[in-house]
């Protein structure tokens, strides 16, 4: 039971979170949902997930800061996938510079996301 891989998802759109939770839990992962960057960081520190999914634009602690916190303050190499709205290439570049592993532009296909998650957690 406890060997299910944990994923922290930081996303403020509740419908989307619910969708992803359903989908990923079907694949056997355990999903922890945060609605903003601060909650995400708390969850990451508490649960030490195997993967992090985060939106870039979030209330008061941005996705970029989450990445920076994980890589620099917590010194973890947890794989991170970021979501971004279209046209935010600059942000995506910064995300990669800070240590993100992959990104998906919105709108994205949930199936595609699952493929990438599996790839990073192999």
């Amino acid at each position, binding site marked *: 039971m406890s060997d299910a891989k944990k994923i922290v998802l930081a996303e403020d*759109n*509740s*419908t*989307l979170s*619910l*969708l992803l939770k*359903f*989908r990923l839990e*079907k694949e056997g992962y355990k999903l922890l949902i945060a609605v903003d960057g601060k909650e995400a960081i708390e969850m990451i520190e508490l649960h030490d997930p195997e993967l992090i999914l985060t939106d870039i634009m979030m209330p008061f602690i941005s996705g970029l800061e989450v990445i920076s916190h994980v890589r620099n303050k917590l010194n973890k190499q947890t794989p991170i996938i970021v979501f971004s709205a*279209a*046209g935010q290439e600059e942000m995506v570049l910064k995300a990669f510079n800070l240590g993100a592993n992959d990104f998906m532009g*919105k*709108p*994205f*296909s*949930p*199936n*595609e996301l699952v493929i990438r998650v599996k790839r990073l957690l192999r």
Partner: protein
Amino acid sequence: MIHHQIATMKSYQYIIDYFENSPIIIQVVWALSCILLIAVVILTIYLKKLRSRLRKNEKTVAEYQKEYESDLITYLYAGNEEAEISAEQQVIIDKLRSCATDEFKRRVIVSTLLRLRNEISGEMADAIQKLYFQSGLIIYALKKLKSRRWYVVVKGIRELTQLRVKEVHDKMGVFVNHPKKEIRKEVQLYLVTLFHFDGLKFLDVLQTQLSEWDQIQLLEVLQRFDEQEIPDINPWLKSKNNSVVAFALKLAKIYNQFEVKDALIDLLSHQHKKIRVDTIHVLGHLQVVEAKDILKNNFDILSQDEQIEFFKLLENLCETSDESFLLAHTTNQNFEIKLSALKIIKILAGEKFKSLKYISTDDDYIKIYEFLEYN
């Protein structure tokens, strides 16, 4: 007791006498005061009702949202391998169909669908659209299109745009030249969202102004598609409608339309200053060297904004042949031009740059030179 009643009657009588004996203006004032007092009392009582109604609405919306959210997700994952509708899905479809008859619930259902639809693509997105059709929600959107109130029409068009309903394309024609600009804007977005670059055909005949806001929205929508098949933008660059020209310039820049450079060079003599400045910017971005010489020759008759933009162009397109021109402008009055000129000289001819250190005692010049020296 009788004393009490008599006393009350006497005070009423006193008030009435007082009122009737007062000058007219005081009567008016007291009458107004009474009206205001009644208004205050009524509004006070009603306020509580209003607030609790608003609070209840919010709670209800939140509850419904959760409910419909989980219905939606269940529907999306209850499909079976064939493209048929499973029993579980049918239950949800029927439920939503009946809930949709209530306007309040319908609004929540649609907003839930939209919230998800905007974030995802692929099979899931198509499934949401199917649900939208099957539950009959689309009927209500079509009804909105027939409304007399413009903001209802706008909401209808918007809903159909977000759910990518191509089937209603023929109904949209009537709105393209609608007098109300909000409706026109919404239709433009519909056309571009669903038909990408083909949807831009309205630019050929557009008489009204496309605001910057409209342009940005259209460009945002276009950027979401990976298509490289951008149509010929020359006719738009030659349009009599300045906002269409401005939009075409943005397209030229974003999609690197080097092939329209001739039309762009023509635009350098457009009557609208902002268009000329934007054209110089695009020409610089596209690295059109011919433009450089034309502008250099006409430099003195250019407006200051154009001159500044030209120097920015030079930063990308400078050649050694420009050196004398640049030297002449290192002491130009304008700060930004001085900065550009010196910056370019430093890149082109480092030695020459060093020799310029003391040619001017102007404060700005010295500041700029020192900054460039150490950077």
